């Protein structure tokens, strides 16, 4: 394998990265059971549950849903008590710019099932729910087919995996709202504590893990914590103004924004320049073009002033109106705010109203301070992260593109026009 790889490249050029998770590039049909070995699941059952948790802890795997909480540590928080415990798989992928879990479920359903079984084994759950957003019909169907294949092959034993379909609500990706939705109630986030590890689904100890988090687990068991720690694979969803949008798997910290855009995305559409990149969908502050040489890992992106989150990179070229982009993102959060906390429910409505009038050239300079003051009234004053997500496009664009906002005020119109394509 290595000789073939080195023959094609200079000695200076490293061989191309071999994806671990998206290991069937270009494939459109799901990997079936006869193509997939449940080797890690067999190996895990020969280990003690504590050993499995230690291995995952040692791998340094962090939650891929956006919060980057250490997965092994999360599992270790589940109390060792009698009675039901639950694994809830967060497959409610709804962040604008995020489409990795969809591809994983559609192509690699058995990798997810194996991760689910190992996770359940580690902290003593016998029932897992997979909360798939309602729009992902193909993903949910393929996952159900794969679960049935695994069940018939006797791989599930006394474990039960239930696919639960959502019905269109971004908030269900918030872990306690997801639990409310599973319990048949309006999906409004819960106050914490108690944390789900202690009191989760049906008041029982529960773990909520993202799809991409769990597909890493079989590889950790098969190849060991040290191997994983050195590699740390991550899927980057690349969208917006690039020539080749898509999911690209690379090790965390192995490339920069610029390299991802140029090498994976084949550059910016139409040869334009990058104006900014949103590293985590609509939820994290935009980074301007001078930050493109930042490495793609959690710490580097944080030091650059944003967050890597779920690594959903939306590229905006120099023709995009930042006021309009901010208004579009805030419109999303206004509609998706569940309405439980007043600052978020009312605040996102006001933010959208003010941004819309600014974008249409009917705002005033004082509106910029109003936006920042409204943001301050939301941030940190609500139960879940949606409020903070909603203010990030506002604060980041007002502070980094103030002149563009002022141009709208002075000219009485948007100086840019329509979305550039």
């Amino acid at each position, binding site marked *: 394998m290595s000789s073939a790889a080195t023959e094609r490249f200079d000695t200076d050029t490293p061989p191309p990265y071999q994806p671990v998770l998206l290991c069937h590039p270009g494939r459109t049909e799901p990997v079936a059971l006869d193509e997939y070995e449940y080797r890690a699941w067999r190996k895990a059952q020969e280990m003690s549950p504590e050993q499995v948790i230690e291995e995952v802890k040692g791998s340094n795997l962090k939650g891929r849903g956006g919060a980057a909480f250490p997965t092994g540590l999360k599992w270790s928080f589940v109390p060792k008590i009698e009675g039901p415990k639950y694994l809830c798989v967060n497959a409610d992928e709804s962040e604008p*710019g*995020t489409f990795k879990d969809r591809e994983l479920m559609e192509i690699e359903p058995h990798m997810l099932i194996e991760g689910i079984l190992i996770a359940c084994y580690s902290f003593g759950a016998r029932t897992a729910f997979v909360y798939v957003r309602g*729009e992902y019909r193909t993903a949910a169907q393929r996952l159900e087919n794969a679960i049935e294949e695994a069940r018939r092959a006797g791989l599930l034993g006394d474990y039960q995996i239930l696919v639960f379909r959502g019905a*269109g609500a971004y908030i269900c990706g918030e872990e306690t709202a997801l639990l409310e939705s599973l319990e*048949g109630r309006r999906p409004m986030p819960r106050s914490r504590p108690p944390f789900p590890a202690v009191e989760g689904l049906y008041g029982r100890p529960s773990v909520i893990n993202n799809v991409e988090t769990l597909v890493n687990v079989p590889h950790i068991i098969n190849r060991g914590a040290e191997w994983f720690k050195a590699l740390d694979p991550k899927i980057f969803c690349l*969208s917006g*103004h690039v020539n080749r*949008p*898509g999911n690209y798997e690379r090790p965390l910290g192995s490339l920069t924004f610029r390299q991802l855009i140029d090498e994976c995305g084949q550059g910016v559409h139409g040869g334009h320049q990058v104006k900014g990149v*949103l590293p985590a969908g609509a939820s994290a502050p935009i980074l301007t073009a001078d930050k493109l040489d930042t490495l793609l890992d959690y710490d580097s992106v944080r030091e650059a002033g944003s967050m890597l989150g779920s690594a959903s990179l939306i590229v905006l070229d120099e023709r995009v109106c930042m006021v309009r982009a901010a208004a579009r993102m805030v419109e999303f959060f206004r509609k998706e705010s569940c309405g439980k906390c007043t600052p978020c429910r009312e605040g996102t409505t006001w933010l959208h109203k003010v941004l819309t009038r600014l974008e249409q050239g009917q705002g005033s300079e004082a509106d910029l301070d109003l936006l920042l003051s409204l943001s301050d009234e939301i941030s940190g004053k609500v139960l879940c992260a949606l409020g903070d997500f909603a203010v990030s496009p506002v604060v980041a664009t007002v502070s980094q593109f103030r002149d563009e906002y002022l141009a709208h005020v002075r000219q009485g119109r948007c100086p840019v026009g329509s979305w550039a394509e």
Partner: protein
Amino acid sequence: MNVQDQEAAGSASPLSAAVEERIRAEVGRYPQRRTGLLPALKIAQEETHFLPPPVIARVADMVGVSHASANELVTFYSMLRTKPLGTTVVEVCAQLPCALRGADELLGLLAAALEIEPGDTTPNGAVTLLRSHECFGACNRAPMCVVNDEYRENLRGKALEAFLAEVETAAGLEGQTS
């Protein structure tokens, strides 16, 4: 007339026996019946196309929750409908990644082809055009829309032309333009 009155008057359920059977089976899958409330409402909607109060009440009774509890879900989730829509529902994703790749233009073309505004249904009830509140997770294949739950992606060039013609046919507008 609420559902209790209907039952007292001997009225039939607003749902077919087959759908009621599916709802019973669905509710029985879960550790707690109430988990089956959202799936049950979706099963009912497959048959009734939207969820008027008698249907909501019937599902709530079958699951064993108050009618208000079921109504709370119906009025929250975007995929549950309180009003009838067209036979074909075209929902365009207008979130930022799609907007950067022509979603607003796609929505405009569809509105022009159907001779309606987003949010409206053609006068013959054939097609409803919606601007989505959600991101559909197809940003790598933008612009896109969802037609009766089926993803239609990379709508540009020839694919877009064919799609517009298809939507016009669904709306019964083809004859008018040719």
